[in-house]
């Protein structure tokens, strides 16, 4: 199997980000909250990416912040995925009022942009990690629902599903043993897209001051902390911005490749 260069670059970069996030306390050269240098120092051999608005090492904060961003995005995309896929498959296999009810509910949720819904909800709920993950996960599960319902509806009319029904298998067997394995490949590619979306979403919320709250900080929050320096030509805010961009693009490259691979597989089978 040949892996194209773009996907390889994407995998290496994504892997590096994940490793840095997992081993943050061992990799980061300085503690997260220690003011070690002067305010807004430029990059030097001592502080590779310079220092921030109160003299903390940006590289260290970037590494710690990355673990928060990646953790929140990963958990919320897993949640949206689990919920979306389960209800999507349920709607496709059950049909009838279950399908109609769930689909109309999703239509309603998708009639308003997620960011606006999130802002309305977060104006009432306390801002903590659990709430953020739940809100993001539930809002994003609507997209997974639509995709998995469409994929499962195609599979549910296959002969082998009919065969399983005729030999008396239950709902659980049909969903998990017949449909899920055959719907896996488009869903895996979609998972990459959902993960990116979650990274962008949590970063945007934190940037607006409505996401991760101090003392924790993530990349979006770091952009917010350092944005005033830009006017004086201090590039500190661009470092976390760059990290968000590079992570998003590298996961995108991998997801793109998986999507292409699975669609060419399908082409191979049909032709």
């Amino acid at each position: 199997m040949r892996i194209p260069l773009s996907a390889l670059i994407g995998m290496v970069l994504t892997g590096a980000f994940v490793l840095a996030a997992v081993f943050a306390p061992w990799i980061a050269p300085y503690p997260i909250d220690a003011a070690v240098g002067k305010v807004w120092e430029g990059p030097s051999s001592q502080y590779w990416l310079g220092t921030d608005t109160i003299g903390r090492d940006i590289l260290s904060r970037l590494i710690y912040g990355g673990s928060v961003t990646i953790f929140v995005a990963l958990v919320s995309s897993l949640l949206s995925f689990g919920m979306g896929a389960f209800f999507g498959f349920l709607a496709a296999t059950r049909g009838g009022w279950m399908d109609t009810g769930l689909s109309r509910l999703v239509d309603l949720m998708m009639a308003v942009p997620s960011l606006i819904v999130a802002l309305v909800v977060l104006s009432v709920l306390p801002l903590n990690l659990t709430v953020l993950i739940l809100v993001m996960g539930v809002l994003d599960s609507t997209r997974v629902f639509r995709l998995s319902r469409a994929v499962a509806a195609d599979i549910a009319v296959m002969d082998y599903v009919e065969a399983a029904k005729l030999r008396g298998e239950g709902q659980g067997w049909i969903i998990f043993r017949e449909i899920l394995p055959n719907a896996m490949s488009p869903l895996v590619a979609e998972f990459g897209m959902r993960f990116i979306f979650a990274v962008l979403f949590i970063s945007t919320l934190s940037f607006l001051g409505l996401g991760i709250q101090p003392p924790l900080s993530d990349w979006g929050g770091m952009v917010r902390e350092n944005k005033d320096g830009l006017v004086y030509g201090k590039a500190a805010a661009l470092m976390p911005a760059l990290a968000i961009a590079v992570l998003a693009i590298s996961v995108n490259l991998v997801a793109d490749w998986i999507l292409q691979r699975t669609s060419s597989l399908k082409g191979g089978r049909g032709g």
Partner: protein
Amino acid sequence: MHPLIKLVVQRIALGLLLLLAVSVVIFLGVEMLPGDTAQAILGQSATPEALANLRESLGLNQSAATRYFTWLGHAVQGDLGKALTNQQDISHAIGQRLGNTLFLALCAGVIAVPLAIALGLIAARYNGRWPDKLISGVTLATISLPEFVAAYFVIFLLTQVIPILQPVSMVFPGMGFFAKLHAVALPVIVLVMVVLAHMMRMTRAAILNVMQSAYIETAELKGLSPMQVIWRHALPNAVAPIISVVVINLAYLVVGVVVVEVVFSYNALGQYLVDHVAKRDLPVVQAVGIIFAAVYIGLNILADLIGTIANPRLRHPK
């Protein structure tokens, strides 16, 4: 009745119904969430008397349904209530800011739409060659950036590296039209970047889809130049999907505008919303949320209608 008029009326009625449902969700959904509104506003250290007073003034002692219908009754008459934090009239505050938001979105739309279609046509014309690869590559990169990240790169580039613009967009009443245009230049550039990519890619895809038809081959064989084939034969047949993707992206501008306004401290609706979420001023958040939802739903229905009207097969159903 002409089936077209019937269709338009049906879609608009459906849109109003959807908006009503959304208002129920925004109003009552918030009620069902765990947590006490009065407690959330006043914080953990509030005294029981202060909590009771606030509940009384918010009408929290009445049932949720009563409050919803009272609120709805006032809202359709243009009265959105008063802000909790400063007792300001919400309708008045929104009226002042709505114009600024629409001005920003309109400027971005006027630039982004023709540019996206032109780039899409060029990419389709040179499909698979370097202009296509260049345009597709650059737009793929911008599509995976959140608005605020794109915004800070643009700010750094155009105020520090090449200092030609101001990083803050101040607009005030009585400002001249051109002064206003100059003030919104940076946020408009960012918004154009954010919506351009998707519109351009869909235009390209729609044109390439049509290019496989038999009549395109005929046009090529009778000796038309490639640009003429696209302009005279492919574009008119791809116009329905292009228009609907354009309108859907204009709806997306509504969301982008919220973040971009905060980045540039641009005094408009999005900034107003975010400020009041942080202050936990629920009536303001609900009112602005409904307005954003209404614009979004309206544009989506418009996209749907234009898509139907532009397609003769859907216009004259068998």
